[in-house]
């Protein structure tokens, strides 16, 4: 009966001693910093092959990041569009201002209509000369060529394409109407296309993330094989699986981070190369549109993604291969 109690005391002593060492925050941090630096040093010593691995990871990360950024910029092209299709109803030039006013009031009562904004020719002219850069040309005109416009936003129940075009037909039949046009049809189409592209990029991202995972997993697997002897010796002199695992997990993280930084450089360089021709093209359309990449946000996102993938990839490799190496 005595022996078990003695055993307990012993194991408790071990356990406390171990806990005291492990929980001492300085030792803990020191140890992790040491392992992290050691892993980095190992990558540096075989820098050519490390760089090649990191470059492959970088390309796999840069592809979705670059595509997503391009898409984001395209989305920005549609500007302040709030997702609601509105329509412009151009009135005949012969319609006097008073009638237009009354019409706007009448239309506002329709159940299909959420709001109506009346834009007089004067307002339209002012806005146009301000935005288009054709002020000089407009000044040369004798009279204002612009019609009165009702900007109509359909009620939310009538916002779907079919109901909106029925509403447009109703406006077309009004005697005052010259032309009724669904303004933002192209924006809706663009948004739909962007949605598809976004989905596509999501699929590509997942596949490439899987590729990064396998890439890192395979690299770590090779490293485990190369360091088999070392793993055996450290296990023989009392290394826990955690201790043996740690340097490989850090290697995985470093590969991910290194790949992310290279990916960032690739994306930023790509956008830098694109930015001038894009600005030129936008200039031809009187737009000050330019490519935006938010460099620091991008860097953090890439590094975070790289770290997670690196850790996960090495974890998978370590889990599969490390436990199999036991001294015998």
């Amino acid at each position, binding site marked *: 009966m005595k022996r078990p109690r003695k055993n307990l005391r012993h194991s408790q002593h071990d356990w406390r001693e171990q806990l005291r060492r492990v929980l*001492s925050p300085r030792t803990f941090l020191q140890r992790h910093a040491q392992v992290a630096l050691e892993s980095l040093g190992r990558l540096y010593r075989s820098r050519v092959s490390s760089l090649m691995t990191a470059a492959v990871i970088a390309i796999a990360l840069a592809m979705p990041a670059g595509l997503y950024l391009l898409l984001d910029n395209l989305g920005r092209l549609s500007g302040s569009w709030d997702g609601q299709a509105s329509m412009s109803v151009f009135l005949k030039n012969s319609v006097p201002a008073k009638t237009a006013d009354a019409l706007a009031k009448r239309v506002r009562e329709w159940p299909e209509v959420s709001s109506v904004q009346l834009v007089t020719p004067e307002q339209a002219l002012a806005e146009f000369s301000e935005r288009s850069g054709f002020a000089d040309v407009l000044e040369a005109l004798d009279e204002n060529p612009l019609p009165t416009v009702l900007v109509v936003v359909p009620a939310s129940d009538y916002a779907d394409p079919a109901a909106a075009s029925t509403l447009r037909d109703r406006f077309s039949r009004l005697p005052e109407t010259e032309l009724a046009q669904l303004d933002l049809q192209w924006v809706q189409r663009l948004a739909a296309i962007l949605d598809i592209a976004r989905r596509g990029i999501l699929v590509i991202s997942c596949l490439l993330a899987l590729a990064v995972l396998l890439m890192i997993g395979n690299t770590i697997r090779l490293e485990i094989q190369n360091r088999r002897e070392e793993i055996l010796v*450290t296990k*023989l002199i009392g290394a826990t699986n955690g201790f043996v695992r740690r340097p490989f997990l850090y290697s995985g993280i470093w590969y991910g981070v290194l790949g992310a930084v290279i990916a960032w450089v690739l994306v930023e360089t790509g956008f830098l190369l694109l930015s001038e021709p894009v600005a030129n093209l936008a200039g031809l359309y009187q737009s000050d549109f330019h490519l935006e990449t938010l460099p620091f946000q991008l860097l953090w996102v890439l590094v975070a993604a790289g770290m997670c993938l690196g850790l996960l990839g090495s974890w998978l490799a370590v889990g599969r291969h490390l436990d199999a190496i036991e001294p015998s």
Partner: protein
Amino acid sequence: MIRFTNVSKRYPGGYEALSNISFHMEKGAMAFLTGHSGAGKSTLLKLIALIERSTRGQLFLDDQNVSRISKRRIPYIRRKIGFIFQEHHLLFDRTVFDNVALPLIIAGYRYQDIGRRVRAALDKLGLLNKERLYPVTLSGGEQQRVGIARAVVNKPMLLLADEPTGNLDPELSREIMSLFSLFNDVGVSVLIASHDIPLIQELDYPVLSLEHGRLANTAGANA
């Protein structure tokens, strides 16, 4: 320190390396384990170091029953044991210092303590001026002493040595054995597997003799 009670080890395939071994080695004792090759010396040491697990019987280390201890706790038991191998298992991509420091790093010692303890161990083995060298540049005897330094740096309660003098000439072997005596003098239990009978007979320690996996003669040991 070490107590075997009817311990047997049968390898997968049916080969019984050890049958019904019972002996007790006191804390602070030193003993030799002899027998021709294949008699089960290595297996017995591997059972103590928990590299192999016994198929039958009870094994106590420092009064703790380790026969059915869980895999997760094995590393902590191994830290109490210094293991010296015939082929010394040094890591050739690290300096002597880093090799000897390994058990301390594993046990989570602070960086400052590691330097102090490693130098103390190297000093004891006369290797202090070699700490920056790589193991390949050392002679066989020096490599073995680095292995011993690594085994003792953690101040283990028990030293196990598997043919520690197997590759050394008689002069060096005697030197190594006297080192083990020195550690034993300060209270470390020592168990050495060796087939160097002349050398063993020179020294006055109990001898456990294995024959075909059975304990044949326990001259001087507390059976």
